[in-house]
């Protein structure tokens, strides 16, 4: 701005100086000059409009070079950490980077990382047209060529299945109770996931249309022919019961099995030792549970997991709990007992306990005071 301003100022000074020097210039000879006024512009007008360019584009050679550098760097890192370069996985890379560059930054995304270039650089489509400007794909001018070609593929498959049905009918072998594809425990891919696969943006209506077509494909009797194709669009949901960490079963010097577990509820923290001795005593913070919990509801909560599993008189419970009120302490103890019981109980029982709500930590906390 100073540089652009200077030019204008200089021209005024020059004019003043010149006026100062040549005092007597006959008016008739003075050529009527149009006032020269410098337009002051800021240099921001000369800067490139970066937002209009869109996301940064990388050439295929650039990305290939990055991949090469990543592979070489991975081997160097493995050598540095004195591990085998051949079997160096991404988890090992993360661990090594965290070790070599320890960072205390709170924002996890700001910490140093080393990932495969495919994860860092967004997926881009290659150039869609040849040297003369003619597009390769026949659906290029729809704007969403991968999406529409996918719809075409699905419809082709539907037609193929119908032709197969007609053939079977002609032979007289048509049966409507053929093998059905199992869809339980999986869900359709989300719109974002499909966008990722197609490397294109699609609208909500487009997504709905695609799902409708897939459902139509599924409704046909011989859909099992296209099983792999359909399963590509289904995401398997994990069975939730596999997520629980079962505490290890430990043994006393006397040979009595016991397990230790923790539980929390609403700032109450509880820790339980479940001993397989066979008496059914419950001691909490050194006192009998009848004295510690005079309210019936809390005692019933303590016994709920044992009653559910059917092992009421089998265990000796020794627990310590602190914080919050009586009801929250009972809830924390219940969670701890359920977790400790996991090591004494079979897989089916674990799933039953989970569906009864015994294994979930209650996330409800006290709501803040508002004016």
């Amino acid at each position, binding site marked *: 701005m100073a540089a652009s301003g200077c030019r204008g100022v200089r021209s005024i000074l020059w004019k003043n100086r010149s006026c100062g020097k040549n005092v007597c210039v006959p008016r008739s000879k003075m050529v009527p000059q149009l006032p020269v006024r410098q337009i002051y512009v800021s240099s921001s007008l000369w800067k490139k409009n970066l937002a209009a360019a869109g996301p940064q584009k990388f050439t295929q050679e650039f990305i290939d070079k990055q991949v090469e550098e990543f592979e070489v760097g991975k081997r160097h890192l493995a050598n540095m950490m004195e591990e085998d370069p051949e079997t160096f996985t991404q988890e090992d890379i993360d661990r090594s980077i965290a070790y070599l560059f320890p960072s205390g930054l709170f924002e996890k995304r700001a910490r140093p990382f080393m990932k495969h270039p495919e994860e860092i650089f967004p997926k881009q489509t290659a150039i869609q047209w040849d040297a003369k400007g003619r597009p390769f794909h026949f659906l290029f001018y729809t704007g969403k060529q991968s999406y529409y070609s996918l719809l075409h593929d699905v419809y082709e498959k539907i037609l193929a299945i119908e032709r197969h049905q007609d053939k079977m009918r002609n032979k007289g072998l048509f049966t409507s109770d053929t093998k059905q594809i199992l869809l*339980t*425990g999986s869900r359709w891919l*989300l719109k974002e996931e499909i966008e990722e696969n197609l490397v294109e943006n699609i609208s909500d209506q487009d997504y709905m249309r695609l799902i409708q077509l897939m459902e139509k494909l599924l409704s046909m009797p011989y859909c099992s022919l296209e099983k792999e194709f359909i399963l590509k669009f289904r*995401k398997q*949901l*994990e*069975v*939730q*019961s596999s997520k629980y960490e079962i505490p290890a079963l430990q043994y006393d010097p006397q040979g009595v099995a016991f397990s230790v577990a923790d539980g929390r509820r609403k700032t109450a923290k509880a820790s339980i030792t479940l001993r397989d001795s066979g008496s059914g005593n419950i001691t909490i913070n050194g006192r009998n549970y009848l004295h510690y919990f005079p*309210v*019936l*509801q809390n005692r*019933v*909560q303590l*016994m*709920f997991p044992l*009653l*559910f599993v059917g092992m009421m008189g089998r265990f000796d419970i020794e627990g310590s709990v602190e914080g919050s009120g009586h*009801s929250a302490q*009972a*809830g924390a103890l219940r*969670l701890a007992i359920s977790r400790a019981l996991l090591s004494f109980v079979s897989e089916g029982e674990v*799933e039953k306990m*989970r*569906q*009864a*709500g*015994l294994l*979930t*930590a*209650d*996330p*409800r*906390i006290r709501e803040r005071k508002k004016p």
Partner: protein
Amino acid sequence: MAASVRHLLKPWTPSLCFARWSRYNPYYLDPDPSKDAPDSELSPEQKELQELKTVRPIKAALSSDTSSTFNDPLISKFINMMMQDGNKILARGIMTQTLETIKRKQVEIYHRSPAAKRLEIECNPYTIFQKALENCKPIIGLASVQKGGKSYQVPVPLTDNRRRFLAMKWLITECRDNKHRRTHMYEKLSQELLAAFANEGNVVKRKHDLHKMAEANRAYAHYRWW
């Protein structure tokens, strides 16, 4: 994949804060603390629900629910409605005393009556409570609809939850307001429950009044648009 589900498993605050919301993500399903699954054949919807339960996270069981046979969801709901300022201990105590009083009264009647009539006398306080509540539930309710500057009482069907809520609410308000100063809540409650069991008493009368009003305002039934 794990990343996309992980954010559904954390304690949740909705982006648009509603007046009533829960710390659970709506992805969570309700728990079922009853001990054993029904062994009878499951309908296809129930089978679907069972399979959905294996893949979805489940909320924690409430502090008032257990798998024992003594746990009655209707009684729990009634205790919660009777509770004031969070004093669950007091509310539960009143409920226990009410059931005890009902049992005592019925057993006294049982022993006083001749052998022929003994079979008809119901001594189980839980069945008495359930039957009494059934007798108090209104079938049709009234809703205030404004039309042309005037508000009319329009007869309207009620959902099951609403009916149960109204029955319990009427019982509790009746027992709190219309009693002698010196009677305890459990005494008055047991009297009302036994009366409702026999289709008498103020609460059943209130239900009948509501039905009569609805019948009287039958002409405005077409004002309902839902």
